[in-house]
């Protein structure tokens, strides 16, 4: 027996009804009476002293009402704000700017054109200061100081390490072969198609309503309360429809704070929406990791130890969005799918004259950096010892019977069957045939490559004992109300940004409550109505909020059983929950549905049972979930141009129990495309003077439908043993797994020329240069 819209069905998405009609409600769609617009004058310099700011001309622009500077904010102690990582960052500068594109003065006007005109008319005098944009140079003693006000008088922010250093060194010294490789994982930007923005509005009683593009509305409310001193009940954060988040909408940006100040100052609602150029110049970046790794292996292909040293470029402030205890995120998942006996990882955070950040990019905290490194390294090892990369992986994988598996760097993997996923992917592409074809092509001097990536993800933060953001434990919540007519409203502390929560949560509840999904409405994002939660990022919604939904629904079932027993005039123990109904054991025709019970809960509750049918659960997961997958990419390289053609890309994912197969597949397609992007197209660089190269979609190449191949997907199912329905997260797996598969394929194609690594993004010119240097063009 099935229930309409239950777990496992490819239910059409509920939220689509408004989006396909153009009736979504994104932040820039919000119009309030008397609303003003905020825009910013930004710094042309990467590092400079501000000697004067003159607002007179700007204030003469028709429609301009106010100019707000760092000095104005300083009077209210708001010129600086805390980051999520216990650092500080400027809202607006008082005397120095630290990166090109930094907000310097806010201009408030009647409409967006006047605000932009006003921003162009603010006159600012600067004295340029020495700039450092390279974190390695920033660590040298003679480097200019990015944050001279800090007591440390150094650009070094923090050092973090985990693992057994001496043990790893000893193991590597004993290994038959040690492969060393440096990787640079460039700075990129999530570039959700909707940029960031807000509307700040005070009511006559001084209560703030903040419509904003945030993935974590409740945590943001608490941060605003702590920073502004406003009582927390006087702040309502509403996260309306979000046009893509991917981590970029977790941090607090200066625009949000200045909009609140502007609304207070003018007595009008104030809207701020950044342009794409603003977004690329100043919103949180991702990655920017300089990695240096050594991996050991025996002659016969057994991986031994792994040692990794990393320099993390954080820009001028450590404004990463990581759990508090993990300044390098979950980078120590870097031992991946392999049972290394010993491993050691160290990371040093560094300041440079670049925008702050260090967020994820559709991936769990720093997991792509880790998965990319280990999957590239394993391929290099295979080439070095002359073993097929699939064989090397199959020989080394943590075996299914070893779970729960304790990794050398301290994680406890919940479940996995890595060989199963890789074998399915190999079967889907016909791996032996591809290798035969490649051998033929090599004889003819053609360049065809096959790349594998067998990654392990870590998502669903997290157990409260280990994971918090600014002290807020990373639990997640669900509140269910069943109305008398058997219809359901459920609210969550997470926030949909396109993942399909309104549909998948309803499916979980349909199965757990025995009520069809169309009778279940899901709401998130309004802190006045939703239960407190930590929000949606790092693929945590299904592992945490999905579990909260199950537990809350089961609380309802416990109470409902008592009411059903009363209606059927039996004792609760005589009933069983079967076929989505309460049935008298052995007498299936004597039964009550959840709708029957709901009506009775308000009209005829059992004696001693309080009226109503509601429950709330704050779920603290016992562990992270560890989704995994194996991807195989096949490329052909054009000798004349260096162009890389992805002929096939097969992605086998395992995210445990699948709630909506259509949505899961869609998430994987999208994740793969955001894995392709940094592998082949996207990168933001800076010149020596700190000028950004990549500040618009002219220079920052987000893949279009033409660059993106036709993704093929497959699935294995290894449920999580600790999640109430066995589900794991999935939104980001493909972003984590794809880059290594693509680069491994390209390197494999060029390996007859002695190529062992090419730094991402692998542009055709880089390939052409190699072909040219080796006399192949």
């Amino acid at each position, binding site marked *: 027996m099935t229930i309409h819209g239950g777990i496992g069905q490819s239910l059409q998405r509920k939220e689509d009804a408004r989006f396909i009609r153009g009736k979504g409600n994104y932040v820039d769609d919000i119009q309030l009476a*008397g*609303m003003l617009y905020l825009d910013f004058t930004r710094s042309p310099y990467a590092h400079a002293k501000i000697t004067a700011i003159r607002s007179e001309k700007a204030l003469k622009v028709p*429609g301009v009402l106010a100019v707000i500077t760092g000095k104005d904010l300083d009077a209210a102690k708001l010129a600086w704000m805390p980051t999520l990582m216990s650092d500080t960052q400027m809202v607006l500068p008082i005397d120095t700017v630290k990166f090109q594109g930094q907000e310097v003065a806010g201009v408030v006007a009647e409409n967006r054109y006047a605000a932009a005109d006003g921003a162009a008319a603010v006159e600012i005098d600067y004295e340029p200061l020495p700039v450092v944009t390279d974190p390695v140079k920033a660590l040298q003693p003679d480097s200019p100081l990015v944050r001279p006000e800090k007591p440390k008088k150094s650009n070094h922010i923090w050092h973090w390490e985990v693992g057994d250093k001496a043990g790893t060194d000893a193991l590597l010294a004993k290994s038959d072969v040690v492969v060393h490789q440096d990787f640079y994982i460039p700075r990129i930007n999530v570039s959700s198609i909707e940029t960031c923005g807000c509307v700040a509005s005070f009511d006559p009683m001084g209560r703030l309503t903040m419509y904003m593009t945030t993935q974590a509305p409740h945590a943001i409310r608490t941060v605003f309360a702590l920073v502004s001193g406003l009582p927390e009940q006087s702040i309502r954060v509403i996260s309306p429809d979000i046009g*893509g988040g991917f981590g970029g909408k977790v941090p607090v940006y200066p625009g949000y704070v200045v909009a609140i100040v502007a609304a207070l100052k003018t007595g009008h609602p104030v809207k701020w929406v950044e342009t794409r150029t603003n977004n690329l110049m100043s919103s949180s970046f991702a990655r920017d990791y300089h990695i240096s790794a050594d991996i050991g292996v025996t002659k016969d292909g057994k991986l031994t130890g792994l040692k990794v040293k990393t320099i993390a470029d954080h820009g001028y402030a450590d404004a990463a969005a990581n759990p508090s205890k993990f300044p390098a995120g979950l980078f120590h998942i870097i031992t991946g799918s392999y049972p290394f006996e010993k491993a050691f990882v160290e990371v040093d955070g560094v300041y440079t004259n670049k925008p702050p950040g260090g967020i994820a990019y559709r991936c769990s905290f720093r997991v792509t950096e880790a998965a990319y490194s280990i999957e590239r390294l394993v391929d290099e090892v295979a080439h070095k010892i002359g073993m097929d990369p699939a064989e090397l992986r199959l020989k080394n994988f943590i075996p299914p019977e070893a779970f729960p598996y304790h990794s050398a760097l301290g994680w406890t993997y919940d479940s996995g069957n890595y060989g199963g996923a890789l074998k399915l992917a190999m079967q889907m592409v016909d791996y032996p045939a591809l290798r035969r074809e490649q051998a033929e092509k090599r004889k003819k001097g053609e360049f065809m490559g096959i790349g594998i990536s067998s990654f392990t993800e870590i998502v669903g933060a997290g157990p409260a004992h280990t994971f918090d953001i600014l002290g807020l434990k990373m639990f997640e919540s669900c509140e269910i109300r069943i109305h008398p007519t058997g219809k359901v409203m459920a609210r969550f502390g997470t926030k949909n940004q396109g993942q399909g929560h309104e549909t998948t949560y309803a499916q979980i509840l349909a199965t757990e409550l025995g009520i069809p999904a169309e009778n279940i409405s899901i709401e998130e994002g309004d802190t006045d109505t939703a239960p407190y939660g930590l929000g949606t990022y790092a693929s945590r919604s299904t592992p945490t909020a999905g579990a909260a939904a199950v537990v809350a629904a089961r609380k309802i079932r416990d109470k409902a059983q008592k009411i059903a027993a009363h209606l059927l005039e039996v004792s609760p123990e005589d009933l069983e929950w079967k076929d989505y109904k309460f049935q008298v054991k052995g007498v299936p025709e004597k039964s009550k549905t959840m709708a029957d019970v709901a009506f009775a809960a308000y009209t005829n509750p059992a004696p001693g049972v309080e009226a109503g049918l509601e429950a709330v659960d704050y779920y603290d997961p016992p562990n992270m979930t560890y989704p995994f997958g194996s991807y195989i990419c096949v490329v052909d390289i054009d000798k004349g141009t260096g162009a890389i053609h992805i002929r096939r890309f097969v992605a086998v994912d395992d995210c445990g129990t699948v709630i909506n197969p259509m949505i899961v597949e869609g998430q994987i397609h999208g994740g793969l495309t955001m894995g392709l992007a940094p592998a082949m197209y996207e990168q933001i660089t800076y010149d020596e003077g700190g000028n950004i190269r990549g500040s618009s979609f002219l220079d920052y190449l987000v893949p279009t439908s*033409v660059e993106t191949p036709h993704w093929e997907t497959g699935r294995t199912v290894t449920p999580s043993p600790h999640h109430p329905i066995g589900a794991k997260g999935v939104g980001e797996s493909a972003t984590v797994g794809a880059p290594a598969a693509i680069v491994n394929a390209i390197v494999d194609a060029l390996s007859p020329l002695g190529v062992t690594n090419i730094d991402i993004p692998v542009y055709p010119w880089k390939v052409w240069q190699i072909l040219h240097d080796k006399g192949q063009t």
Partner: protein
Amino acid sequence: MASTAIPRLTSPLPIRGATHKIHVTINDVPFDFMVEDRTLLVHFLRDALGMTGTHIGCDTTHCGACTVLLDDVPVKSCTVLAVQADGRKVRTVEGLESGGKLHPVQEGFTTEHGLHCGYCTPGMMMTSVALLAKNPNPTEEEIRRAISGNLCRCTGYVNIVKAIQHAAKASGGGK
């Protein structure tokens, strides 16, 4: 910080610069408007008329979130002045459904899961409508070329291609 009293505004786009009168047919309804010369069509639709289905995703004419049909041709409305719409027909996402019936392209997008966050979707659908009007039987290759001026960050395009193929089939074409 002290609150400064500022008179309430009547319109989100108070007209201050030089203006023109335009006559424009939007989703089959004719209108006459006064518009400021420099107002972009996308801001005119969104801020002045409250038709917020047409979105904005960039400032360099790359993303296509703002795509509308101008005399049945897809244009990026962030790169067209409202005055340029004078005497012409504009169709937006709000004009796709007719008589309570979804357009086949809308049906295709929801059936094939061609959208996640929905932000690129209106522009993507308008481009698709124009493609199918010109080419009722597009191949995957032709679809990918046609939508290459519309960026989607969420879906990876595979299901958008399927959505357009679905619409083609429903309209009697399809390959």
